[in-house]
């Protein structure tokens, strides 16, 4: 008999299942993975170094580009750290708006995850379904910030502006008939909050649709049950957070355990898995869809009843309004100072973390009293998850690797920073 050796295979960085620019060097015995060595860094942009050379306000758009499928959650951790160091109070309405958009972002992220995870494992329809809903959420982003993805909406001290009273509508084009346009604009007649509420009423039915397609699907179960099993002890030791940790049965959610903003006033449940395999993590994320939807509903109700300021009135941190800036000398000086030199953060260090859709996303900041951070460290949840890739895929078949990449919900913007 001929002697058979293990062989080494290169996976990515341009593979469609690599979710961006993952390069894996795999050692295979037949079709069984003996060792996986992820090579990351192909998307490294040095965000932390760039932030050290920019004022605090100038770095907010960089935060959007970290995890580019959950933009506002990244901003949230960043502005929370600054607010913590400044000892800044955020108006209650801004806190509700932030929570609402955090949850919209969670749905946005999980939709991309279910779409990509589905298409990786052969469920093509999921991708189309998920992107149909993502479109509405992008419209919400656009209505509030002007950008569909990279919003830069959260600012130290609140959010950039209040929710618009009028939801932008589709305009007539030669490609669509009047009737089609009217149909598209049906739920856009009122304010942004009306549109969001309409979405939350529709969305649970869509989640049911996804579950009909996948949850009891024999092929889906064969591809995910028992794949990438992580015990709760190992999950903790490997630094897992978010759905990856909850899928292993550890009940840990920052929104509940170390509540920030107004999460302690809202009613929601934390889903937890049992077996710690890909299927349980799938179920956890599916339930998070419904819980996020519940939170958004509560926020919409509150925001309808309680108008108020959405950003701090401290003009050393937040710009004065445009009218004041053009008529009032003091406001003009504030505006000028804020956008040239920027504000100064007191000497010290702080760490603030949010429950990002992927796990604990934290910002550690050291300031020496300058208008730029001295050191900014981004704690990306995906970084810890992908470092456990080797342990999770060892002994699995090559095709299961794709399931593990999917279940880890990898996005390279945050891993490579």
């Amino acid at each position, binding site marked *: 008999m001929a002697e058979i050796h293990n062989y080494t295979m290169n996976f990515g960085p341009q593979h469609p299942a690599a979710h961006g620019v993952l390069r894996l060097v795999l050692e295979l015995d037949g079709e069984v993975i003996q060792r996986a060595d992820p090579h*990351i*860094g192909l998307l*490294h942009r*040095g965000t*932390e*170094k*760039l932030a050290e*050379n*920019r*004022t605090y306000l*100038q770095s907010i758009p960089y935060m959007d580009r970290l995890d580019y499928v959950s933009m506002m959650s990244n901003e949230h951790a960043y502005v929370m750290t600054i607010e*913590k*160091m*400044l*000892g*800044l109070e955020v108006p209650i309405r801004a806190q509700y708006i932030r929570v609402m958009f955090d949850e919209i972002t969670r749905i946005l992220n999980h939709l991309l995850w279910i779409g990509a995870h589905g298409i990786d494992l052969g469920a093509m329809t999921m991708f189309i379904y998920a992107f149909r809903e993502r479109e509405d959420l992008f419209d919400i982003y656009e209505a509030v910030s002007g950008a569909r993805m990279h919003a830069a909406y959260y600012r130290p001290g609140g959010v950039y502006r209040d929710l618009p009273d009028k939801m932008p509508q589709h305009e007539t084009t030669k490609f669509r008939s009047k009737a089609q346009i009217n149909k598209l604009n049906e739920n856009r007649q009122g304010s942004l909050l009306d549109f969001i509420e309409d979405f939350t009423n529709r969305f649970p039915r869509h989640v049911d649709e996804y579950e009909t397609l996948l949850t009891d699907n024999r092929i889906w179960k064969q591809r995910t049950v028992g794949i990438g099993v992580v015990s709760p002890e190992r999950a*903790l*030791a*490997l*630094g897992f*957070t978010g759905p990856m940790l909850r899928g292993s049965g*550890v009940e*840990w959610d920052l929104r509940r*355990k*170390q509540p920030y903003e107004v999460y302690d006033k809202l009613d929601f449940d934390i889903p937890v898995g049992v077996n710690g395999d890909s299927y349980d993590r799938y179920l956890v994320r599916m339930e998070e869809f419904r819980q996020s939807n519940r939170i958004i509903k509560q926020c919409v109700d509150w925001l309808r009843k309680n108008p108020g300021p959405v950003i701090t009135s*401290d003009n*050393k*941190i937040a710009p004065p309004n445009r009218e004041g800036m053009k008529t009032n000398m003091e406001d003009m000086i504030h505006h000028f100072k804020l956008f*040239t*030199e*920027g*504000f*100064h953060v*007191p*000497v*010290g*260090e*702080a*760490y603030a*973390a949010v429950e990002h859709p992927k796990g*604990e996303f*934290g910002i*550690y900041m*050291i300031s*020496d*009293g*300058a*208008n*730029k951070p*001295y*050191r900014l*460290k981004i*704690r990306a949840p995906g*970084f*810890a998850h992908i*470092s*456990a890739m080797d342990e999770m895929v060892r002994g699995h078949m090559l095709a299961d690797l794709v399931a593990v990449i999917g279940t880890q919900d990898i996005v390279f913007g945050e891993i*490579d*920073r």
Partner: protein
Amino acid sequence: MTPRIEALSAQLKLALNAGLVKLTEDLNELTIECKAEDFIEVCIKLRDHGELKFEQLIDLCGVDYSEYNDGLWEGPRYAVVLHLLSVSLNQRVRLRVFATDDHFPVLPTLIDVWPVANWFEREAFDLFGIMFENHPDLRRILTDYGFVGHPFRKDFPMIGNVEMRYDPEQRRVVYQPVSIELRNNVPRVIRDEGRHS
């Protein structure tokens, strides 16, 4: 200090006693410092002590203090900062340890204490050049294959040293010195206006 922070700091003092060099509380966060030679021992205590139980290493990062406070920093240049989380007791602590040698910063590896330290240490090595003794696989992680230097050190220019382009004559990718200039529109200024609260 809130009662919880106070209780935790008392426990830390009790559990670590001589291993603890400094304990500070700021913004409701506890920061402790230890010596490089006690590092592993302190970490094991933090993980296993019944009242501390920091099972999770949330983050490990390098810091280069050389230009802190416009270069008025006194003390070792490199530090490693750990953020620990106890899921069972719901508490956090930050641990800072300075590497004694500024020219060849070395610290022991934490892989045996928290396996997740593996990649975090590779990152700190790659970006700051901090060596981790007994690390089984201390390769570069974020920068390019064959990269020279440690980009997050304060003396490394923000625009880098080399740039890459395709050379049609050699028909391959070549590296050459950077052709751009560093542009900084907003100077770094330290003012002690204090808090705006």
